[in-house]
């Protein structure tokens, strides 16, 4: 959509800036718990962005899955291992390491920028204008995602369920305490 209202743009930028600031803060925290919290902030901001991009179901899933399940797992493990205090090992590396990492990041950013410029002509619709809006109107927010999920990508869906099964088994086995008997 080319003509977004000021309200829309302002909030888009607002949530973007909050996300960036929260991400930077997240990266520089000493305590794992604090870092996890800040990552949750980032995820919420991203959820807001998704809403503004007409992906309401995804936004809901972001909050439910990422912020609600994955981050919870992280916090459980942090608590389990009692790693919550700000500790020295959480410190970032020396000044040179930081500078070099920053430089690497900048280079990466520049390259991504160069590539996207040549790769994606902005504003060219493959699927036609207002495709998204039409889908939403026809199937509803959930249905718009569910229809391709169960129809076009059914195989991937089934495979993902197998993947989840394997992951569960793996996590259980790996996380088991060593029994007294020798392995």
């Amino acid at each position, binding site marked *: 959509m080319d003509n977004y209202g000021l309200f829309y743009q302002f909030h888009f930028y607002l949530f973007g800036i909050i996300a960036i600031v929260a991400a930077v803060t997240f990266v520089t925290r000493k305590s794992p718990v604090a870092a996890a919290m800040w990552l949750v902030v980032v995820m919420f901001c991203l959820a807001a962005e998704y809403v503004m991009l007409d992906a309401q179901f995804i936004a809901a899933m972001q909050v439910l899955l990422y912020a609600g399940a994955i981050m919870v797992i992280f916090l459980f493990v942090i608590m389990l291992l009692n790693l919550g205090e700000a500790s020295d090992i959480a410190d970032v590396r020396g000044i040179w390491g930081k500078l070099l990492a920053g430089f*690497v990041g900048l*280079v*990466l950013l520049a*390259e*991504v920028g*160069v*590539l996207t410029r040549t790769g994606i002509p902005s504003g060219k619709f493959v699927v036609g204008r207002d495709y998204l809006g039409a889908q939403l109107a026809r199937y509803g927010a959930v249905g718009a995602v569910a229809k391709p999920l169960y129809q076009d990508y059914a195989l991937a869906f089934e495979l993902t369920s197998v993947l989840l099964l394997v992951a569960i088994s793996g996590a259980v086995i790996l996380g088991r305490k060593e029994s007294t008997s020798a392995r």
Partner: protein
Amino acid sequence: MAISGVHPLAATIAAWMWLLPVFPLLGFIINGALSMYSSAHIGPADPDMGHGGHDSADGEAHAASGHGDSHSVGKPRFASIVTIVGPGVIFLSFLLAAAMFFAMRGVDMTTPFVQKYWSWMPVGDLQIDFAFQLDQLSMLMVLIVTGVSTLIHIFSVGYMGEDEGFARFFSYLNLFVFFMLLLVLANNYALLYVGWEGVSLCSYLLVGFWFKDKVNADAGKKAFLVNRIGDVGLLIGMFLLFANLGSLDFTTLAASTGSLQVGGALVTTICLFFFFGCTGKSAQLPLYVWLPDAMAGPTPVSALIHAATMVTAGVYLVVRSSFLFSMAPVASITVAVVGAITALFSATIAIKQWDIKKVLAYSTVSQLGYMFIGVGVGAYSAGVFHLATHAFFKGLLFLGAGSVIYTMHAAYHHSGNHADAQDMRNMGGMRKAMPVTWVMMWIATLAISGVPPFAGFFSKDSILGAAFEHSHDSILSSATWLGMSGHTVLLGVYVFGLAGALLTAVYMTRLMLYTFHGPSRATEAEQHAMHEAPWTMTGPIVVLGVLSLAGGWLNLPSVASFLGPVGSLDKWLNPVVGSATLAITNGTAIEASHGVELTLIGIAVLIAIAGIVIAFVALKPAKLVTKDQSPGEHGFEKVLAEKYYVDEIYEAGLVHPAFVTAKNVLWRGLDVGIIDNLFVNGSAAVARGFAWIGAQIQNGSTGAYAWGIALGAIVLLSVFSFR
């Protein structure tokens, strides 16, 4: 080859000349095999056979080497076979040579007879063949070499008869004769060089024959190394020759010398380099120092190698290259001057030596100087004449000294004395015990002193006469040498020659007086044990004595025409060296008037007799005491006895700095520092460094892996973004 058609000698026995070196080579192989077999199978019952008439360079070291009184109890293994084979093969070569000589006399020969056996080095423009060249000069040399060698081989049968290295000795001797024949028969400088190096090798093997004594081994090394230094000169001369004239054949070179400028820098340089090689091989200044030390070898070796054959190779080289030397007056004068200085210098040393072999060694150096005077002033056949007569009388002198030493050793065995058997102060009055040897040695002494009608008189007189006559009306006299006119220099050469002749007579008479005359300084028991050496040793001495007596008839001067044919040797060698001699004397043969000739002869004879008389008058053999009781030398006599400290000067000035340089610069700096540390260890360190870099990729640190992933991603992306 001959100009047209086949050489006239090809149809005669001379076509078999390739057999000449093959006989000694077979002898070497057979004797060598026997020697190796016997040394590998020494049984437990074999007694220590290390005794026998062995000499050493320094009698003290010999006596102190813990020798013990072990008497050899039997002949060495295979002695009978070796006795037949060793001298036998040389005798066969001599017979063949004699037959070839007679064939040659019956043929009119102006060009050499060349037989090519195979093409040895065809490389680019260079064509070197393994070919023999038979002309009058090489025929004469072959006869001298094989003849004198046969006599010395027979002598060695008696002398080394109880030495455990009997077979080895003969194998080395035969090998030596093989190489010497290669040298004199060679058709080109490269093959000559093979023989040249080969005789150096055999000299090393034979001088260090009793190598268990370090002194002897060192003497062998010294002989070889000093010769090697001279060989560099010969090599450089050969390189220059090839680079400028494109060939190394004698015949080709002799024909192509027209392109060289007479007296030019190139010819002079080539000749000087050749002569440097000769100073090494023929023991002239400055490379003569190996010859006195080489007396550490057995006496037959000294007789053969260091009197008759190897040391004459240098003279032979100059005569062979006469077509070059006759074009380079400066080089020829240099040859004559060095020869003259050496003749006088070593004669002064000889008059104060006490070891009988050392006297003869310095005498050899001195006489070689005379030969070089001869070939230096352009009288090539005179030089060769003296070479021949010197082989006779010096060989005789060495063999006689060998007999004396043998007898002294036998006497000392009886009495258990460990004194030096070679020191003249321990001898005296030996003429009663060894009359035949005494007479023969006197013949040789008169010959070497230049008393007519013995051989040395004629040869030495022809050399000095040529030096005097060529000092005017020759290209030498008109040349300048180091700023002086050739005329003056050659007169100086003549005077030096006369002085050397005087000293020669003195020291040789001294040798005879101290050894054979006067009271004996040995004990009664030892004197009873002394007797004449066996016939195998005395026989060759007698033969050489006859030759020393009659050798002069080889080349009688014109004033002595009543004695027989005049100038036989000159006429014989004329096809080979005649043109070179004429080139020296400006195209016309110098014919001195009878008056001048008689005057020169008179001066020479006077000097010889004066020397003998001086020695008889001034030296009192009765006043001598044995070596152990003799007082040390003082003053100038000490300098002479210590041979002007030349060896010590060389050691300090050349050998020691070279050693220090080799150790510190070349070994520590170059070998260890650069090659070992930089190249070998350094390349290992570089490989280790690369390995270390590679190892960092798998150090297990997850953080490093993360870095690797990030950097890899950047590299890949950059490839895409810069497409």
